[in-house]
C-alpha cells in the first residue's frame, strides 16, 4: 500500500479492505478518525448484541461507504482466501440478522433459517468467484506482468502457476456448489420431502453409475485415440509441409537441371539459386521475395539477377536493418547495378558488399569485366546509370560509378541517415 493512497483514505471515509475483516468498514472508520480498528469493531459487536442496531448499521455502512480502491484491494477481491472469508462472513451476517429478527419476535421455522444461511454462504462464494473472474481481466496483466518482467519466468513455471490458479478456482466453485446443494438437502430434510427426493436422487445416481460402467472404457479409448490421432495429424502435417517445400524447390530445380543439362552456365545458376533458397530455409530466414530487411532483400535481388543472366553474384552484408522507402530505393538501385554488372561484366563473378551502420548505408557492386571509358559510354548503359544515380538522388543519397580499363567497374551507393 502506497503512502499517497494511505493519506488520501485518511482524509475521506473509505472502506479499507486491506486491513478489514469483513467489508473493511471498521478499519476504514478507524483510519478516518485515527483510532484503533479493534475499538470500532468492539463498538459494532456491542451495538449488534444490543438489539441488532450495530448489525444494520454495519450493513448500511458496507453498502454506502465506497471502498478504497487500492491496488491490493483490487487484486485481493478475486483471491481464494478472501472469497472464502467473504462467504463465511455473508453466512454469519445473515445468521445474525435472522437471530436479530428472532429476538424481535419475527421467526421463521428452522427449515428456512439454516438453508438460507448455507445458500447465502455458497451463493456468495460462487458470486465472488465469477465476479472475481471478471474483475481479474483488466487488473491481471499489470499485476502478473510485473514479476515476470523483473524475474524472467519460464513458460513452464507460468503454466504451472496458471493451472494452480485454475485448480484453486475450481475447488472454490466446488465448495460453493456443495454449500448450495447442502442447503437444498437441509431444506428438504426439514420439510420432510427428503424421502421422495432421495428416491429420485437414488434412481439418478444408479443410472449414472450404470451408464458410466458401460461407457467408461469406450470413453477412455475415445480420448486416447483422439490424442493419438492429433499427434499423428500434426506429424503428417509437418511431413506434408516439408514435402510441399521440397517439391516446390528442390524437385523443381532438379527437373530444370535435367532439362538444361547442355548448358553448364544455366545449370550452375539454377543450382546456386536453389542453394541460396535452401540455406535460407534451413536457417529459418524468410524466403527471398518477402524480404523486409536489407540483407534479405539484397540476397533476393542477387538471386534474381543470377537467375536471369547466369552470372554468379556474391553478396556480403555487414549489419542489417529494416527496409524503409529510402532503403528500398537503394536495394532497387543495387539491383540495377547488379544487372549492369551481369550484362557487361563479361561473365565474371559480381561482388556485392553492403554495410549498414548508424550513420549511413553503403552498397558496392563490383564486376571484373573489361571496364569502360567513362567518356565513351554506350547509350543504353548511360540510361541504366541514370536510373541508378537519379534514383539515389531522389531519396537523398548518391551514387558513384568508378571504372578503369582492365580493372572492372564498381558502383557505390550511399544513403546518409536523414537528420
Amino acid at each position, binding site marked *: 500500500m502506497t503512502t499517497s493512497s494511505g493519506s488520501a483514505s485518511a482524509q475521506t471515509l473509505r472502506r479499507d479492505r486491506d486491513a478489514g475483516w469483513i467489508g473493511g468498514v471498521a478499519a476504514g472508520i478507524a483510519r478516518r478518525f485515527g483510532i484503533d480498528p479493534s475499538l470500532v469493531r468492539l463498538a459494532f459487536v456491542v451495538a449488534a448484541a444490543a438489539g441488532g442496531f450495530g448489525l444494520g448499521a454495519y450493513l448500511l455502512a458496507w453498502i454506502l461507504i465506497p471502498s478504497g480502491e487500492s491496488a491490493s484491494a483490487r487484486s485481493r477481491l478475486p483471491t481464494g482466501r478472501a472469497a472464502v472469508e467473504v462467504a463465511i462472513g455473508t453466512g454469519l451476517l445473515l445468521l445474525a440478522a435472522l437471530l436479530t429478527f428472532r429476538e424481535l419476535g419475527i421467526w421463521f421455522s428452522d427449515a428456512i433459517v439454516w438453508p438460507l444461511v448455507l445458500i447465502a454462504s455458497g451463493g456468495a462464494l460462487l458470486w465472488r468467484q465469477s465476479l472475481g473472474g471478471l474483475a481479474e481481466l483488466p487488473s491481471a496483466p499489470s499485476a502478473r506482468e510485473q514479476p515476470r518482467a523483473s524475474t524472467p519466468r519460464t513458460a513452464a513455471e507460468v503454466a504451472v502457476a496458471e493451472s494452480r490458479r485454475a485448480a484453486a478456482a475450481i475447488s472454490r466453485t466446488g465448495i460453493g456448489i456443495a454449500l448450495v446443494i447442502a442447503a437444498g438437502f437441509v431444506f428438504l430434510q426439514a420439510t420432510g420431502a427428503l424421502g421422495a427426493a432421495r428416491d429420485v436422487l437414488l434412481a439418478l445416481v444408479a443410472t449414472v453409475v450404470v451408464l458410466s460402467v458401460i461407457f467408461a472404457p469406450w470413453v477412455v479409448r475415445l480420448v486416447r485415440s483422439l490424442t493419438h490421432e492429433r499427434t499423428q495429424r500434426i506429424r503428417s502435417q509437418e511431413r506434408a509441409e516439408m514435402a510441399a517445400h521440397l517439391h516446390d524447390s528442390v524437385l523443381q530445380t532438379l527437373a530444370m537441371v535435367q532439362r538444361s543439362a547442355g548448358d553448364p552456365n544455366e545449370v550452375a545458376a539454377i543450382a*546456386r539459386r536453389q542453394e541460396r533458397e535452401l*540455406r535460407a530455409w534451413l*536457417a*529459418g*530466414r524468410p524466403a527471398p521475395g518477402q524480404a523486409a530487411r536489407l540483407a534479405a532483400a539484397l540476397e533476393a535481388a542477387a538471386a534474381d539477377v543470377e537467375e536471369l543472366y547466369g552470372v*554468379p553474384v*556474391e553478396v*556480403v*552484408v*555487414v*549489419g542489417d536493418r529494416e527496409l524503409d522507402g529510402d532503403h528500398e530505393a537503394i536495394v532497387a538501385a543495387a539491383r540495377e547495378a547488379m544487372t549492369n554488372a551481369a550484362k557487361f561484366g563479361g561473365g565474371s*563473378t559480381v*561482388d556485392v*558488399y553492403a*554495410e549498414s*551502420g548508424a550513420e549511413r548505408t553503403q552498397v*558496392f557492386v*563490383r564486376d*571484373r569485366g573489361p571496364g569502360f571509358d567513362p567518356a565513351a559510354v554506350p547509350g543504353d548503359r548511360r540510361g541504366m546509370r541514370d536510373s541508378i544515380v537519379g534514383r539515389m538522388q531522389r531519396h537523398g543519397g548518391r551514387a558513384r560509378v568508378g571504372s578503369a580499363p582492365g*580493372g572492372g567497374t*564498381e558502383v557505390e551507393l550511399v544513403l546518409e541517415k536523414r537528420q
Partner: protein
Amino acid sequence: MSEPRVLIVDDHQLFRAGVRAELEPLLQIAGEASGVDEAVIAIQQHRPDVVLLDVHMPDGGGVEVIRRTAAQTETPPCFLALSVSDAAEDVIAVIRAGARGYVTKNISGEELAEAVRRVHDGDAVFSPRLAGFVLDAFAGPAPQPQSELDALTAREREVLQHIARGYMYKEIALRLEISPKTVEAHVSSVLRKLQLSSRHELTRWAAERGLDL
C-alpha cells in the same frame, strides 16, 4: 622456390577428387584424407606444407584436426579452411583454432591455388565473406578495458571493406596507395586479432548470428 605440397582433407570422396583434379596441374598434391583420425596421421606421414581442411566432418571436424596436430607437432603445417558452410560460427571457430584463412567451396581452381600459395607464404587468406564476418564481429565499441586486440584500426577496416567488395590484394594496394606487403601485413594483423581477441562478440556473436544470419 618449389610449389607447396598440399594435403586434401574432406569426408566427401567426390569433392576430394574434384579438388585434386583442379589443383594437380598447379600444385603438388601430397595426399588425401577422409576424416579427422586419417588427417592427423597423414599430416605426420606426408609432412605437407598446406592442409586444405574441410570444416564439417564427423568426430570434431577441421577444428579437431588443427587441435590434435598442434599437440603432436612442433612445426605444424598451414591450414586453409575450405567449407560449403557460410555460417559465421563455423568460420570463426576454425580461424580461432588456428587456420590461416577460409575460402568457400565454390572458389575456382586457380583462385584456390593462389590462396594455397599465399597461406604457404605466411599470409592470411580472407574471402569476401570472411571479411564481412570480421567487420561484423568487430563492429560496435570495444569492450573495457580496451585492448589493442579488441578493435580494428581504421586502415584494417578499410582493407577488409575492400576485400569484402571483391578486390584483390594488389588492387587494394593500388587504391589505397600502399605496397602489397602492407596490405598483407594488415590482413595478417586482422587474423591475429581474430584469433587472440577476447571480444565476447566473437564467441557469443557467432552463435547469435548463426540463428538469424
